[in-house]
Structure formats: structure tokens, C-alpha cells
């Protein structure tokens, strides 16, 4: 500690999630940055010199971290995306929590905030263009009102482009991240018989979790600001992804599928609400040229690797407690 004159310090919210852990590994082990994590959940296999605060971002104690450290970057990964949580708590956690993060950044002169939003904000619709750009409208809540808090968070972050222009705000909107993460798409592929809607086979974009970690690191470079879609390999049909996972899909008739999904959700057989069936029906494919052009980011893993990463179960050892997933 004493050797270094000034240590680089970063804050990662949602550090106990899979993506938080991957990012920690990159920053801490590979770049020698001091990482401070904020997450209510237990951080398994935490490296000794990574500081972890098991607190709620909305609590006063969070401010102490910023008071006592000169934070260089805040990586805001700690959005809640748990369909089993109550709507009120969801909204408060995500929107109020994000608001607090930006307030701290402003008050303690943090130069950069990186928010990990999601392609969910665009939403599955029949009239989606084949390449959704960063300027496309955020219609995700049109048919799935439960995710309007995620859209609010995305918009809130965008408002800081003009509210605090000296703050470098980056919003990342990744497509389906596959790997040890517990998000809807990875969970879907891990099902014994992933459901498909009979007669529908939308194009899907997936992204290996390591590529997502690279994109986050790239976004933190000084001078980078703005909204970026994060896209990995070219889109493939959903049926191809299921085939790569080695599972056999079960075909549901789309008019009755929502009723089945509602029952299965109520019985806790699945963790995705029925509105997410639209993802199996309509394509949400993003244009990734902006992040490639401006950040020089390039994916390393293809769709096969990404699916394989989602099917690996050994990474879940002892991680059962991390129940709520992070998009």
C-alpha cells in the first residue's frame, strides 16, 4: 500500500453477481486497481484486498465510501432484475439507488460512471428494425410494464449528459449475456426443455460474459461517454441457440403459452414472467457499430462459446445464495 503514491480506486455496485466478479477480476488482478464493492449479498471467494460493503446503496453508509476515497470510476452493475420482488421495492432499489450513485459522483467529483443497462429497454416488438440503434425509442415497457424501472434508470443516466456535462456518463446496453450469470436467457438455455413458440424462430444476439466484461473495461477509458449497444457475434436463430445448448425445445402454441407461463411462474417452475415470452416471438437485434467504432471493442467469443459458457454449471458451486440476477 505504502509503495504507491496514489492508488486507483473504483467502486462496483452489485459486485457479488457474476458480472461483478468478472469485472473485479479484470480490474483488481489484471490492472491492479483497488476495488470497493457494494452489494447486500455475500461475495463468494472474495480476494482479500477487495473491500466489500454489505450495504444498501440507498443507505447513508454508502456515502462514507465516497467521503473517504478518491473514486475514479463507479461501475453501476447493481440493478435488481428479480421478477419475484415486489414492484415498489424494485422501483425504489433501481431508480433511487441509481439517483444516489449519480449524486455521489457529482458531490465527490467522481469523473466517471458506467451504468450497465440492457437491450431489454428496447423490448421485443413485431416492428423492430433489424438493427436497433442507440437512438431507437425505449419501448420495452410497452408490453412488459414491470421493467419500466429499468427504462427510468437508463433515462436517468442519460439526463446526466446535460445535467453534469463534466461527468463522463456511459450507458451500456448489452444483448443477452450468456455465462455463469443468472439472467433470463442463460436460465432459459439451462432449462431441461427450453420452450419455443410454435412457428416462431426469432433472430437472437448473445454475448459471452467475458466479452461483456471487456466492454465495461473499454467503456471506462477516459474520454468515453454516451450510450452504447454492446453486441457480440452475429445474430443466430433461437432454434440454433437451443441446438447449441444440446437441449431439445418444447413447442408451445403461442395463443395459450402465456397462460401456461403464468401458471408455471406461480408454481415456481420458471422464474420468468409470461411477458418475457415475447422474446421468443419477436427479434430484438441491435446495431453494435458504435461501440466497435468508438471504443475499438471487439468480441472474442462466438455464439457457440457463449452458449457453452451458459451451460457450465460448476461456477455455481457455493453461489446458491446469489439468488437475484443482475442483467
Amino acid at each position: 500500500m505504502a509503495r504507491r503514491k496514489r492508488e486507483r480506486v473504483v467502486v462496483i455496485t452489485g459486485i457479488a453477481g457474476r458480472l461483478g466478479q468478472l469485472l473485479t477480476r479484470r480490474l483488481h488482478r489484471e490492472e491492479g486497481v483497488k476495488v470497493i464493492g457494494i452489494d447486500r449479498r455475500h461475495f463468494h471467494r472474495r480476494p482479500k484486498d477487495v473491500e466489500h460493503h454489505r450495504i444498501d446503496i440507498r443507505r447513508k453508509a454508502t456515502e462514507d465510501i465516497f467521503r473517504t476515497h478518491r473514486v475514479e470510476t463507479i461501475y453501476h452493475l447493481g440493478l435488481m432484475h428479480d421478477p419475484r420482488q415486489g414492484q415498489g421495492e424494485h422501483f425504489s432499489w433501481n431508480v433511487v439507488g441509481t439517483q444516489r450513485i449519480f449524486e455521489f459522483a457529482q458531490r465527490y467529483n467522481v469523473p466517471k460512471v458506467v451504468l450497465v443497462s440492457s437491450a431489454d429497454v428496447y423490448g421485443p416488438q413485431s416492428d423492430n428494425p433489424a438493427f436497433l440503434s442507440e437512438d431507437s425509442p425505449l419501448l420495452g415497457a410497452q408490453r412488459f410494464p414491470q421493467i419500466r424501472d429499468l427504462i427510468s434508470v437508463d433515462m436517468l443516466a442519460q439526463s446526466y449528459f446535460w445535467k453534469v456535462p463534466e461527468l463522463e456518463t456511459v450507458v451500456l446496453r448489452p444483448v443477452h449475456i450468456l455465462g455463469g450469470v443468472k439472467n433470463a436467457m442463460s436460465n432459459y438455455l439451462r432449462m431441461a426443455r427450453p420452450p419455443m413458440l410454435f412457428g416462431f424462430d426469432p433472430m437472437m444476439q448473445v454475448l459471452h460474459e467475458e466479452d461483456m466484461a471487456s466492454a465495461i473495461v473499454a467503456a471506462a477509458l477516459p474520454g468515453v461517454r454516451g450510450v452504447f449497444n454492446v453486441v457480440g457475434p452475429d445474430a443466430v436463430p433461437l432454434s440454433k441457440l437451443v441446438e447449441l445448448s444440446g437441449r431439445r425445445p418444447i413447442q408451445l402454441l403461442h395463443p395459450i403459452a402465456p397462460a401456461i407461463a403464468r401458471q408455471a411462474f406461480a408454481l415456481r417452475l420458471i422464474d420468468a414472467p409470461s411477458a418475457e415470452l415475447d422474446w421468443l416471438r419477436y427479434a430484438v437485434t441491435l446495431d453494435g457499430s458504435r461501440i466497435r467504432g468508438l471504443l475499438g471493442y471487439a468480441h472474442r467469443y462466438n455464439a457457440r462459446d457463449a452458449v457453452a459458457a451458459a451451460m457450465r454449471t460448476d461456477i455455481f458451486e457455493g453461489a446458491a445464495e446469489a439468488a437475484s440476477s443482475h442483467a
Partner: protein
Amino acid sequence: MSKQQGRAGTFERIADAARDQLAVARQARESGVGRQLWTELTEAAGDFRGLLRDGYRMDEDELERRVAHLLGNKNLNEYGVDPFGFSPEYVRKVFPVVEAMYRLWYRTEVHGIENVPNDGRVLLIANHSGQLPFDGAVIGASLLLDRDPPRMIRSMVEKFATALPFFGTFCVRCGQVTGLPDNCRRLLDAEESVLVFPEGAAGISKPFSQRYKLARFGHGFMRLALETGSPIVPIAVVGAEEQIINLGNAAWLAKLVGAPSVPIPPLALLLGPAAMLPMPVKLRIYYGEPMTFEGDPNDDDAVIAQKVAEVRRAIEGLIERGLRERRGYFI
């Protein structure tokens, strides 16, 4: 007992109805229209038999060569699919069906196909007709089968259709895309040939009384042509208006099922749901000379409308020619 009687009654009624229909058919045959249709149908049946006898399928080697040509310049990923969902492998699979439809069912005749450039961006603008969008499939087939070198078309499909189960997936895998300006712009920038029906749903659902009268043209295609510097090839499909006879559109039913329109085919009284199958009319496709336009893509509607009207007139001219040249609906 009574049930048995009831059934017997039903059979009798059906037999009576059939006798009546036969009488009507006989009458029609004896009158002028009937005789005309009868000779047309027998001639068409003869053509059909001839095609079956002599073979209508494309030579396997020739097909291979054409597919190879198409694959040469496509942006396919490792799974053989392009970003829009087009899969040449899938097209190969459904190809026999499309070929049979093009050669046998419609016995399609093509004129002026050399007007479509060999490569580079081009907008193909056609009249839309026939209740079901087989005109798009036939134009696509003509460019694959009757043009050398072949060209793959990407057509702009109504979003209602791409959202349908099976049919939507079929369209997408065959290279068709949801009709949005952004999709069209990207395809043109990738030097593709894009087929647009500027009449949209209003064109395809015309009732029989309005056949070959073009509905209002949208302006979007012209703005895109100006923006991307794409030439326009006007196309007329003649014959498809008679494939399904439509008395009018049931607006309330369309609203109920969420479709752009629902036709009322009078033949449904005779044929039931089979009345929505296209009749084996003969199709004629006329490709007009390429037109180029210059100007500001964001010009006033009035300015754009003049340019659109030019394309519309060109298509009307081609339709007139087609109607003049044809001898009947089926031949």
C-alpha cells in the same frame, strides 16, 4: 331414427344444391363467358399436362451454379444466416415449392427482366394484388430462375405478416424483411435489390371491381431512393388480380382478428375455405426501364408526389400493356 332421417335430409339437400350448381355451370358454359372460360381452362390444363410431361424443374447443375452465384456476395455468419435472418440453405429447401408455383401453377411469363441491373443497389417497385402476397414470391422467383446472373430480392413485408407464426419465419428465412425505412436503407447501402409495394395492404386487398386500378402510392420509397441514390425499376404483375375473387373487405372482421383486411370471396359459398386458395391464373411480369431521380429526400410532399406519380404512370403503362397482350385469365 329421427337423426337418421335428418342426415338423409341433409344429403338430399346437398345433392339438390349440387344439381343446381351443375345446371348453373351448364348454362354458363352455353353462354359466351362460359365458353370462353371453358376453352381457357382446357388450354391451361393442356399446358399444365405438357409441363408435367416435359419437366419444368431447373437442371440440377444449373441450380447449383445459381446458388453459388448468390452465395458469393452475401453477408452470412458461421451458421449460414445473415443479420436479417435470411438463410440460403432454407431457400434451397423450399425452392421446389416456389418453382412449382412459378412454373406450373402460374405458368409465369416474364418480359424485360434485363431491365434489372446485374448488381448494385436497386429499388423494385411493383403493383400489389391478389389478396395473398404471392406476387412478391413470383417476382423473387423470376429473378432467381429467369435471369442470368440471378439476383436475390429482399422485399419489404407488412409487419402484420412477419409477425405471423410459420409464415413470418418463412418470409424472414427467405430473405424478406419487415417493411421499415431503416431496414430498407441498410439493404440498399449493402447494394441489395429491394422490392417495395408502395400500395401496401390497400393494394393487395382490392375488390374485384377495382382490379388493376392502383391504390394510393406511399412516398417512403421515393425518399429512400433519393437518399440512397438507388435507381427504380417499375414492375407490373398482371393476372394476380383474378386469382382470388374478392367482393369487398369485411372491415369489422379485419378489426376483430387484427389483420389489415379480410376479403369476402363469393366462391366460398361453393368451395368453402378453399376459395382463399389462388386459382391457377396465368401471371405476366413486366419489368420497365430503370428510372433515376434526383433531389432532396426531405423535400415537400408535393415535390415527392410528382416523382412518385412518374413511377406510378410507368407501372400503369406496363399494366395496360399486359392487359392488352393477354388473351384470358388462364392462358
